[in-house]
């Protein structure tokens, strides 16, 4: 498999088209939600214009809380859109700590220039994005949604208490 094919795997291209969680409306994306347990973050890559507004909602599960869902509004390349789609599916039902760990591991993977092997247990479908790490110029594309999710999670946890 060429490096290009390794980056643009079928799974990635499918996510780029189906875009799970890409159902936040443009109106919702421009207004900050004012509810406890909800966080929202806008990220822009000024180099290529890729853009995402991501909303993360927590729900109570017993004494703990878990991610109820990630919904986003965005526009960008196949990598950034697929990455947001995968993240949206992965995060559902995760505890804040689990999501934080996922984000941390994904960031390390992306920064590894291809030296790290993805941990499928932690990353699930996001492991398919490992090929991006060989293209430093594209790492930001892959990270866009994850950076937004990290900030939205922080807000949601802070207001959820």
């Amino acid at each position, binding site marked *: 498999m060429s490096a290009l094919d390794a980056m643009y795997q079928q799974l990635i291209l499918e996510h780029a*088209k189906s875009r799970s969680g890409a159902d936040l409306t443009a109106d919702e994306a421009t207004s900050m939600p004012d509810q406890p347990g909800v966080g929202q973050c806008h990220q822009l890559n000024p180099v*290529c214009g890729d853009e995402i507004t991501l909303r993360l909602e927590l729900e109570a599960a017993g004494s703990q809380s878990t991610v109820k869902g990630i919904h986003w509004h965005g526009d960008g390349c196949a990598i950034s859109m697929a990455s947001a789609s995968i993240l949206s599916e992965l995060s559902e039902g995760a505890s804040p700590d689990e999501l934080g760990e996922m984000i941390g591991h994904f960031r390390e993977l992306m920064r590894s220039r291809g030296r790290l092997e993805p941990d499928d247990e932690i990353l699930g479908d996001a492991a398919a994005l490992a090929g991006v790490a060989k293209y430093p110029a594209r790492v930001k594309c892959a990270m866009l949604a994850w950076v937004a999710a990290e900030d939205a999670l922080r807000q949601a946890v802070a207001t959820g208490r």
Partner: protein
Amino acid sequence: MVMVSTSATAATQVALSDVEVLRIRNDFPVLDQEVNGRPLVYLDSGATSQNPRSVLEAEQEFYELRNAAVHRGAHHLAVQATDAFEDARATVAGFVGAAEDELVWTANATAGLNLLAYSFSNASVGTVRGDAARFALGPGDEVVVTEMEHHANLIPWQELCRRTGATLKFIPIDDDGALRLEEAARLITERTRILAFTHASNVLGTINPVAELVALARAAGALVVLDACQSVPHLPLDFKALDVDFAVFSGHKMLAPTGIGGVYGRRELLNAMPPFLTGGSMITTVTMEKAEYLPAPQRFEAGTQPISQAVALAAAANYLHETGMERVAGWEASLGQRLVTGLSAIDGIRVVGPAAGVERLGLAAFDVAGVHAHDVGQYLDSVGIAVRVGHHCAQPLHRRLGLTATTRASTYLYNTTEEVDLLLEAVAQVRPYFGVAGSGASK
């Protein structure tokens, strides 16, 4: 003897031929390499161009034989360096149709536009002495730009207007990427103090009608600033003949190294303008209270200048002059047409700017339905083709076109028709590769 028709003879005189281009390529060491196992196809000269050996050697020779600070000190090397620096100015001034003292060195076009905007800004505040008052802007005054500007010829004017209270207006474009001249005639009024526009668009490839716009500005008494970043490298031109007041360009887009560019200004204007950067090398008398300034160009060249870069830029101007700008422009015009015609024939490709058959630079920016420009660029890179993707520092223009990003292939005198055809072949593979062939519009 080979028989050629008279029209073919005329054509070979006005444009380079594929054979000559192959010879020219030998002068550019960087072009001779493989990328991802394929010969490099460099189609990003609109962003930055490559350097011929003569330019690289001129810079190296300067450092090996003549390096010293210029305009100070009387030792042998200082004299040599000063001569080389000022000879370079004369060469480049001659290349763009300016007098020597009407060419100010800057780092690049962006620095040149900021020099102008900040000088006008300085003329607008505090106690402005003498002639400088004529450049002062304030509430009620207007600056007019166009919808197709590079951010470099937009943001400095936005900021100037913000600082002075003047109003910024823009001439819109039509769907074919041409300026709407009837709107220009309406927008340029006696309130207009500055008309700043690009000679040629780095995205659309449109070549703007300078004479018409200058006439409108003259009638309104406005100063004309020309962004010649995409024209000086690619078209034969003469700033005096174009009758603009100011013009800017960048060396790195015309076969020279980075770090050097120029501002042309009419002598009487430059000498009346307040300086922008101040400090050493631009003064006559300095007391603890105030300073008197040298006339242009030194007036605008505070601090140690990019000397070897200026020398290299002169070598680049010589290279272009010897090749012949008419012939360079003719060649690139044919490559530009080949790009538009070829790209437009591919399913799902929308080329922005002038239609096939209409004058344009040797570049084409395009949208690929269903595939983001970033992914298009990545695919092309995988087969050795270098293009630019993104908004090309023209966000308002892209917004007007209903796009966030495009892919741009831009040629120069060293690109062959074969390279354009390689691009066309590769672009035709993009939608099938990303599995969107046959589907509708992008997004």
